[in-house]
């Protein structure tokens, strides 16, 4: 067995060792097929492709199980609807805080500050609001997890919006 094939074999064996229960059978299947791949380079391509597929599969499984555990155990449809409504309530709360806080403050800032200062001050105000969102989400995490998730979702959306807006300003 050449070094390339040895490496390919070691790669798939490592993937097999670290794969979760849901991917274990597939990792073993890929490893067994390696014996039938003719050339060493083809074996390496097979192992790299297989390891990538296993990583993606494990990552998607872990992502979905994290989301399930974050929302709580699967319940009845009515309970799922309630959780979804609570998450929307969280987004709504965050949106209302943004509308009342930032827009109100910004109106005063427009009058008080020169135009060049607006952007920097707005970002500072939004950063402070993000801290409030984060603290609120942490406080609600145990008692009202869907609401906390809604607030976090709004915080992420606001951050992305500000990042895109700032990026556009820099390009100009």
């Amino acid at each position, binding site marked *: 067995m050449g070094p390339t094939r040895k490496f390919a074999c070691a790669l798939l064996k490592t993937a097999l060792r670290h794969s979760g229960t849901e991917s274990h059978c*597939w990792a073993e299947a890929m490893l067994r097929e390696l014996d039938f791949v003719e050339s060493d380079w083809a074996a390496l391509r097979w192992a*790299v492709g297989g390891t990538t*597929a296993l990583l993606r*599969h494990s990552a998607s499984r872990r992502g979905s199980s994290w989301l399930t555990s974050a929302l709580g155990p699967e319940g009845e449809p009515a309970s799922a609807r309630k959780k979804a409504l609570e998450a929307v309530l969280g987004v709504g709360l965050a949106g209302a805080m943004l509308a009342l806080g930032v827009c109100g403050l910004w109106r005063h800032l427009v009058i008080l500050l020169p135009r060049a200062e607006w952007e920097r001050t707005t970002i500072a105000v939004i950063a402070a609001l993000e801290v409030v969102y984060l603290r609120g989400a942490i406080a609600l995490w145990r008692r009202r997890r869907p609401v906390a998730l809604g607030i976090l979702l709004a915080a992420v959306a606001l951050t992305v919006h500000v990042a895109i807006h700032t990026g556009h300003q820099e390009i100009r």
Partner: protein
Amino acid sequence: MKLRRSPHTLQVLDFFLSNPKAWKHGYDISQSTGLMSGTLYPILIRMAERGLLETCWETPEGGRPPRHLYRFTPEGLRYARELSAERSGSGARKALLHPRKS
């Protein structure tokens, strides 16, 4: 919708349809379809998770470690046949709407 109808998925479905009762090995599917393991296995995993593909381990022979085998479940076969009929129907419709000039 059972599966995302990507060209690669359709290739794998067509390969299984060519001999639907036979068990197939992963590397043979890869050789016949030209798909690499990184593309092929996610498709096989999705098909198995959606109940379209049944899997089993080969009985070991001559001290060789067993290989994983795949074939359509009855539901998978029905789905693949429906999809194939749908595709050939839409192909025929396209040919009728845009006939090739000779």
